[in-house]
């Protein structure tokens, strides 16, 4: 699945054992694609000594208050780089 800048996406709430680069705090949260970064080797394969398949990397912008509602910081945001296979349409 591919996404465009400005599109609303949700981070899949997945909890695999193993090396991933999707922060726990973002799982299941939704935000807006800030930019499409490009195609990069999948770190989940590189970590196990394999040359990674290319995956599209996105920067997703989250409202700080959507992720940490207990400490809302008005209009502050958190931008995270997230690979395509962790994202779904929101």
């Amino acid at each position, binding site marked *: 699945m591919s996404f465009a800048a400005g599109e609303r996406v949700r981070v899949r709430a997945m909890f695999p054992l193993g090396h991933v*680069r*999707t*922060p726990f*705090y973002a799982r299941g949260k939704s935000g807006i694609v800030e930019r499409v*970064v490009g195609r*990069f080797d999948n*770190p989940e394969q590189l970590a196990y000594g394999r040359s990674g398949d290319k995956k599209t*990397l996105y*920067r997703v*912008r989250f409202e*700080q208050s959507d*992720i*940490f509602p207990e*400490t809302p*910081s*008005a*209009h*502050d*945001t*958190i*931008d*995270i*780089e*997230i*690979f395509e296979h962790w994202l779904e349409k929101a």
Partner: protein
Amino acid sequence: MSATHDHPHADPHAHHPEHHVPSTYYEKLTTALMELLVEKKLFKAEDVQGAIERMEERRPERGARMVAKAWVDPAFKQRMLEDGSAAMRELGMEPGDMLLTVMENTPQVHNVIVCTLCSCYPRMLMGPPPAWYKSRPYRARVVREPRAVLAEFGLQLPEGVTIRVHDSSADLRYLVLPMRPTGTERWSEERLAALVTRDSMVGVAVARMP
């Protein structure tokens, strides 16, 4: 054996200098690993020294040079915002495979950089990250309560300013372009660069006031 005392940038108090206190298991492991790899001809002993010297050349002053140039040269600033690594090369600095991404502070937006998963940092530009950047409190809290964390660095931002935290979770490395202080209108790049601190380029501070 290794001479901690004759090394200009190493802090003699940071860890046990080997001639005072017996070295730890992990210090010995480092020596053993290095010597084994040299014996196996994977690299030479002088390559290790060379890598240390290259690392010491990567200092926050290099980031400050880029920022000062961006302050006086709007066309360079535009190129730097589009491609930070290309802007580094333009100034004769080698980014390697680092994709430097520059985030510009404005009166409305303040950017701050973290790596919650490890310690990703624009090392090819500025060298190794400071200890606090790698620490649990910074990594844990700057995403959850950025204003409280910035206050611990002495930075109080007005409620109206939006804070954008950037979590370096994958392939990009970030540099904050701080705002140019007022009262520096006719300053040279060299003079301006002295106002640009490492912390202002990570976003836990603003540039020094003149």
